[in-house]
């Protein structure tokens, strides 16, 4: 790997780590480990912890993937490894 590619891979790993941290917090954090704490709060008729477990985490996953895909397109270009 040349320098450019090594830097690209590092940036990718950083981005993945950040995304997976959010992934963990919304599902295992808010939806399971801290569900009782979040259930004190209401979101409409939902208890918040219950909402994270059955709705919120899924919406967050969706946002995460699109965010990652778009950020990676930018990284591809910045480090000169884009496919076009």
């Amino acid at each position, binding site marked *: *790997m040349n320098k450019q*590619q090594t830097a*690209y*891979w590092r940036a*990718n790993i950083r981005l*993945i780590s950040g*995304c*997976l941290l959010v*992934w963990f917090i919304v*599902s*295992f954090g808010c*939806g*399971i*480990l801290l*569900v*009782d704490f979040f*259930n004190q709060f209401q*979101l*409409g*008729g*939902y*208890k918040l*912890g*219950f*909402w994270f*477990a*059955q*709705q919120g*985490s*899924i*919406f967050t*996953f*969706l946002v*995460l*993937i*699109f965010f*990652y*895909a778009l950020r*990676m*397109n930018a990284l*591809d270009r910045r480090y000169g*490894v*884009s*496919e076009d």
Partner: protein
Amino acid sequence: MDLQTLTYLTIGLSFALYIGIAIVSRASSTGDFYVAGKHVHPIANGMATAADWMSAASFISMAGLIGFLGYEGGMYLMGWTGGYVLLAMLLAPYLRKFGKFTVPEFIGDRYYSQLARVVAVICLIFISFTYVAGQMRGVGIVFSRFMEVPIETGLYMGMGVVFIYAVLGGMKGVTYTQVAQYCVLIFAYTVPAVFIAINVTGNPLPQIALGSELLDGSGYLLDKLDHTLVDLGFGAYTTPFNDKSMIDVCAITLALMVGTAGLPHVIVRFFTVPKVRDARISAGWALLFITLLYTTAPAVGALSRLNLIATVNGAEGTGTAYAIMPEWFKTWEDSGLLAWFDHNDDGKVQYAAGKVFAGDGKPEFADDQRGSHRERLTTNPGQGDIVGNAPFANELYVDRDIMVLANPEIAGLPNWIIALIAAGGIAAALSTAAGLLLVISSSISHDLLKSTFARNISEKQELMAGRLAAGVAIAIAGYLGLHPPAFVAQVVAFAFGLAASSLFPVILMGVFNKRMNKWGAISGMLTGLTFTLAYIIYFKGVFIEPFAANIPENWILGISPEGAGVIGMALNFIVATIVARNTAPPPAHIQQLVDDIRVPR
């Protein structure tokens, strides 16, 4: 038009559509057959992945499962969607860059070992066949209930259709039929959900309706459900950890997430897009299309549970006389997925917590004999004990699998919606079955024949071998559907554990750990697979009697067999790392290969 004519018409039209697509998109090369020539648009691939992924279990069983589990249903929702995040970031783009045809092919090349490749094929075939058997059962249920044909006839029809488009079209045909099947199944799933949501809460979006107030002025839907269930002796719907411990919920969720990312028929879909960046965004589209169903399912589950209680226990909450039970009750009773035993001899059906029947709680019917109320007679009534402060003992057995299928009837929706649900269930089952059969056949023709045992066959012969293998795989799947081993339903859930503990870790390390070598990968895969399989058999006893009772006290760290994939995965990582440290590093050209798949260009 009556229901049956409508159902035949809807299913007939959908079959004609699938076959039409297959004829238009025939495969002419092995590239077409294995990966649709890598020409699939990322949005189309997202839809195809969604249909590929959402099986009969997602369509038919999941909402019922959530409706009966309450909060803990979230582990399926998070588990079966969270895997796409892992797929998009950790696997799909790099495997697409690698750019060949099958998952075992990647493992074989990356670990420079035919042995690793053959082990991967074994894992793949094991995972895929357990999974496909469940799909065939789904097809059988839908056919036998809605078309009133024997299960066998229905199965042969389903097999015939899959045969035509999988054998003829290969991945290319399967991809475009899956796009059509996605449209059918999502329409069939959401339309009744919207109708029911409007009926009960006045809000058409099921995702919002679940958190809304009821139209009858009795407060929030979920609060009402909590109270109703507690009054009947159940745990409250939204209260966490009624039936499962926190650690077990964590383990099962993680096993499902990682298992999803490690399922070969899902991974291979990302081989079909033109570019690396298409693979990333395509995972997003796939999850978007899946989210439409997965965020609707909890509303369907909760509403159908509430509807069921209201219909059975009646406005006064004292039960409804069997004689005036609606028609759907009796048709499902005829199919054996619903049963009533009158514990208190009052002629009324009552629903509360507790087991109606002895043993595993399932009814055993006395053939077609009828009781004094014309109900189907059963031979294994339980004690009829009252649970908690419920007003009566439970008298109703409901198979969770019928909730989605029966929901429109329970809610009194028109016939065309019921026909639509039948077509949707079949679309969900067939699309997944076709995807699975395809990875099985390509791993046989490409990984076993072309690359291992018969290296000198021509492309034409390989294509023919792929078609033959698909045909044989369909026949075996059909056999499993006709003679479902008693453990099929349980085993499908375990396919995830096996994928999580065998394939996912070796692919991940193949990309992210340059030092990982063939001995590490092979020993890791075998350790993970063996441990998970042994753990499941130890407690569940597939083919043999279990060795120990399947209770939390006996489990390692309180993790149930459903979550065993997590322990298997951890062992896989540990063993692989230790073995790789103590054996020679991979050769330079393999390290070069890893560098190469890490960048898109």
